[in-house]
């Protein structure tokens, strides 16, 4: 059972009929996202994101490795998305399915290939050692639109993550622990996000952030990757029926607005979290007599 259960005829007809009257199942407007709830865990780079009922956890981690032979100046960055049986009964552990390949591809193209994380800054010593950054995406609950949710969560995680400081001394690499030196933020060049649209009724109706039921009733999808400045770094229309060219142009503008909004919201949560950490973190940790565990809160 690797397929999501099909929608009944009544449900499909109803969703299409409702869209003809410009109503969505949860009362949203066509260009509205579901409520976005973002929070950070105790450690750097641990993001919990909830988009409606879609629930995602992203964990960013770093380790020192050898760079690739052909790119001695570049660090490594990988996105690892796994769909486990936790997210949906249709998914099996350890078996890849279409959505996984599809979502991984989009995330790779939007975040990795647009160089959102500057991999050159991850180099420690040319050809010898570099940082390997890894983003693990776990889907906890699935109600449609995992690409957008995962994209927001990964970008938030990369901005939140701090890697240990490393220096080169006499040709040797020294990595300082988090207690010894203040950990370093990653170098983010720009903040691209994906915005997924689904088309209905011969692309007369185009909606953003579809739920699972809407996704199943849709005839096609358009994914736009765009950053806050308005650079489109990814555009795809993989399958389904043809979409209107004007719709794509119009929706790119919508996507830009959405990305700006979401980036502002993420920035707000990020700053609040960092401010909280600064208050409790360094003052306590740096005291000499304090070798006990640092109490949070």
């Amino acid at each position: 059972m690797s397929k999501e259960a099909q929608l009944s005829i009544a449900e499909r007809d109803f969703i299409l009929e409702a869209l003809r009257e410009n109503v969505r199942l949860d009362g949203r407007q066509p260009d509205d996202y579901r409520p976005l709830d973002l929070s950070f865990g105790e450690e750097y780079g641990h993001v919990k994101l909830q988009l409606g009922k879609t629930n995602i956890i992203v964990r960013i981690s770093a380790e020192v490795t050898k760079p690739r032979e052909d790119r001695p100046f570049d660090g490594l960055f990988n996105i690892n998305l796994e769909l486990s049986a936790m997210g949906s009964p249709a998914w099996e552990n350890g078996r890849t399915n279409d959505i996984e390949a599809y979502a991984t591809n989009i995330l790779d193209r939007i975040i990795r290939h647009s160089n959102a994380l500057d991999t050159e800054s991850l180099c420690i010593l040319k050809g010898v050692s570099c940082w390997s950054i890894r983003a693990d995406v776990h889907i906890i609950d699935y109600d449609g639109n995992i690409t957008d949710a995962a994209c927001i969560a990964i970008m938030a995680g990369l901005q939140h993550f701090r890697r240990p400081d490393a220096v080169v001394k006499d040709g040797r690499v020294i990595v300082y622990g988090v207690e010894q030196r203040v950990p370093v933020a990653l170098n983010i060049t720009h903040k691209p996000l994906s915005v997924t649209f689904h088309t209905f009724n011969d692309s007369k109706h185009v909606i953003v952030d579809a739920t699972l039921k809407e996704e199943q009733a849709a005839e096609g999808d358009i994914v736009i990757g765009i950053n806050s400045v308005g650079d489109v770094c990814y555009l795809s229309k993989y399958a389904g029926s043809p979409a209107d060219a004007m719709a794509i142009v119009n929706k790119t503008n919508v996507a830009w607005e959405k990305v700006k909004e979401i980036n502002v919201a993420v920035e707000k949560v990020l700053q609040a979290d960092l401010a909280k950490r600064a208050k409790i973190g360094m003052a306590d940790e740096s005291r000499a007599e304090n070798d006990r565990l640092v109490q949070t809160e």
Partner: protein
Amino acid sequence: MSAPLVLLPSDEVPQDHLPTNNSNPLRLGPGLRILSQPSSKGSNHVLTATQAGLLTTDAKRNTVSLLSFPNRRYIPTVNDFVIAQIHHSSVDFFHCMVTPHTAHALLGQLSFEGASKKTRPMLKQGELVYARVQSVGVGAGAEVELTCVNPATGKADGGLGPLTGGMVFDVSTGLVVLSELGKKLESLGGFEIAVGRNGKVWVDCSNAAESAVKVTIAIGRCLQETDQQNLHTHDQKKLVMKILRDMKLVS
């Protein structure tokens, strides 16, 4: 009535909680299983719970049932009403999905009201039926059987049969809340509703003419939000008003 009693799976139902009225046979609700029947005058029913829940008894009708808690997994129990989706049909049966990703349940081609070889409904893949669980079988791999008629009368009691039009909303299983909406929406033509124990509610408002879609969505949103937020009566009334205003159905 004694204090509320919460049972966990495998807990035995205490004797003093069973109804003592012996004129009718004891009737069991979902989540309970009978281990032994009274053989002689002195002995009693031995019942155990198969789900966690609150024990409720009705002395007049001589029933014992377990009020289970919201749950995302439905386990078929005899006599439950469910909303099933046709997956495919074979010579004698429609194979239906009661919950996604579980074994299909069987619905006889002839178990509809007034159905004969010639008049049986031709249901296509993806159509919905409102059906009653007839038998669940014993042991692993047993097939669940559904029916759309009452075998005693041959009638479709309680609106059983194919559901056409309308929309299905998913809620937690065990949730059966509906109030207030009926009154408010009467002027718009009212609505039809079928509640399945498998966590599905079917709503149709084709009487409401042009606002049919909006009314259906309003009802669906009310149900889902009530379910998600576990609202009480007072909050439910407020929610109904909020959503109806939001959908511009009442001023």
